[in-house]
């Protein structure tokens, strides 16, 4: 469990990036922070692995204050996926993934073997193992980033807009795969995104963040969609958008779901 306890972060210049924020990420759940640019999501995420230390307040992992832990060892025990993968450009795919087990003390052959297994896990061909990141597509880089984060089997996974740099179709399939993975792995995931649809697709719980990390609402995807707490959330979720207002129509005996303007989306199964 990750717990944010009245956390505030003030950077050197001026107003707080995050002001008095408290929430928890339950073990084995996926919590998605969603909010507009500059609302402090990355700042919150980085407090978990001590890339950023809070100005006041505490972040606890299983009831232990992270500031009492050695930052380097803490980071090695947590998976971190950055936007556009964050791969090291001078290391091959297999080396990039093997880094984390290596840092955790695995022998070179073991780490390599582990890395190749991780390629299978994230659905990448082993033929890509000896390529450099620049020789991969954006979607492939993202998968390698996920593989690397999972390579030493951490309990906690931090994901900062990991699928932000790929096109919507690839993003959809990466989201799908992450959900499948999570079903078997059961990690504690804190995930950051701009994209409310991504949040709805992945989250056990969504936290909608307004400016300075202030929590506008937290709830399951269904709660957020059906009972937005205020106008800010309603606007953010786009409850009035045509694609959120679905209707049922009859097409020659088949029940069709359409959006508000009557465009078909799918058929209804009862």
């Amino acid at each position: 469990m990750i717990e944010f306890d009245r956390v505030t972060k003030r950077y050197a210049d001026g107003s707080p990036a995050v002001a008095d924020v408290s929430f928890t990420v339950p073990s084995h759940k996926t919590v998605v922070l969603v909010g507009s640019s500059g609302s402090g999501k990355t700042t919150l995420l980085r407090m978990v692995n001590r890339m950023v230390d809070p100005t006041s307040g505490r972040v606890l992992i299983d009831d232990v204050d992270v500031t009492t832990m050695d930052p380097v060892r803490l980071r090695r025990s947590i998976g971190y996926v950055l936007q556009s993968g964050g791969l090291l450009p001078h290391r091959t795919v297999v080396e990039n993934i093997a880094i984390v087990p290596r840092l955790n003390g695995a022998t070179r052959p073991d780490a390599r073997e582990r890395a190749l297994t991780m390629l299978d896990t994230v659905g990448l061909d082993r033929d890509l193992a000896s390529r450099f990141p620049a020789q991969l597509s954006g979607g492939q880089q993202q998968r390698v980033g996920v593989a690397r984060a999972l390579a030493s089997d951490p309990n906690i996974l931090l994901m900062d807009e990991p699928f932000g740099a790929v096109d919507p179709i690839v993003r959809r399939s990466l989201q799908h795969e992450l959900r499948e993975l999570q079903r078997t792995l059961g990690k504690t995931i804190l995930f950051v995104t701009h994209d409310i649809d991504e949040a709805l697709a992945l989250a056990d719980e969504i936290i909608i963040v307004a400016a300075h990390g202030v929590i506008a609402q937290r709830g399951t995807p269904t709660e957020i969609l059906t009972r937005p707490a205020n106008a800010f959330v309603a606007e953010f979720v786009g409850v009035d958008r045509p694609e959120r207002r679905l209707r049922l129509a009859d097409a020659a005996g088949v029940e069709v779901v359409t959006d508000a303007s009557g465009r078909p989306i799918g058929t209804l199964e009862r």
Partner: protein
Amino acid sequence: MKWLNQNVGSLLELTVAHLALAVPAILLSLVIAVPIGWTAQRLRWARDPALALVGVLYAIPSLPLFVLVPVVLGIGIRSSANAIIVLTVYATAIMVRSAADAFSSVPLEARMSATAIGYSTWHRFWSVDLPLAIPVMLAGLRVVVVSTVSLVTVGSVIGIPSLGTLFTDGFQRGIVAEVAAGLIVTVLIALVLDGMCILAGRALTPWARAAEAR
């Protein structure tokens, strides 16, 4: 041609002497400049003063320095040590700037992600910052190589043996072939060392070509 036939031995000897001054100075400058450049990149406030200081070094005329260094350090004016120190000063002046630029050129994203997955600062320096700085650093090193090889010849004016000795001697005795030989071999050495830098750079940065080939 006749001069060359009679003096192959001394030409070789002077070439070796030339290299024995240039190469240590080049390597020393690299060893000195890398930590300074890295620190300048990490401590933003230190960058400009550090670069200004090494800039001033470069502005000192070389001949007076060849005379001043032995006086200050109490070493022989015609010693190799004197030549190597003076050459290192100029080489370092160029190399520090280039090392600072090289470390700034390392993508922030790569540095961030290295830290995030649990590299210590020291480990990150060797495994991430330094290798990714190589391409820019190499461009600076090539300038240093060529300028140092040519600067060595100035030492011959005060009697430090190098290929420059062929200029001074040939000039005094009016032997054009000797001057020409000195000039040509100096340029050849510069070209060969430069070529070695390029090859070393290729060998050390396989990822750079992989990115281009895409």
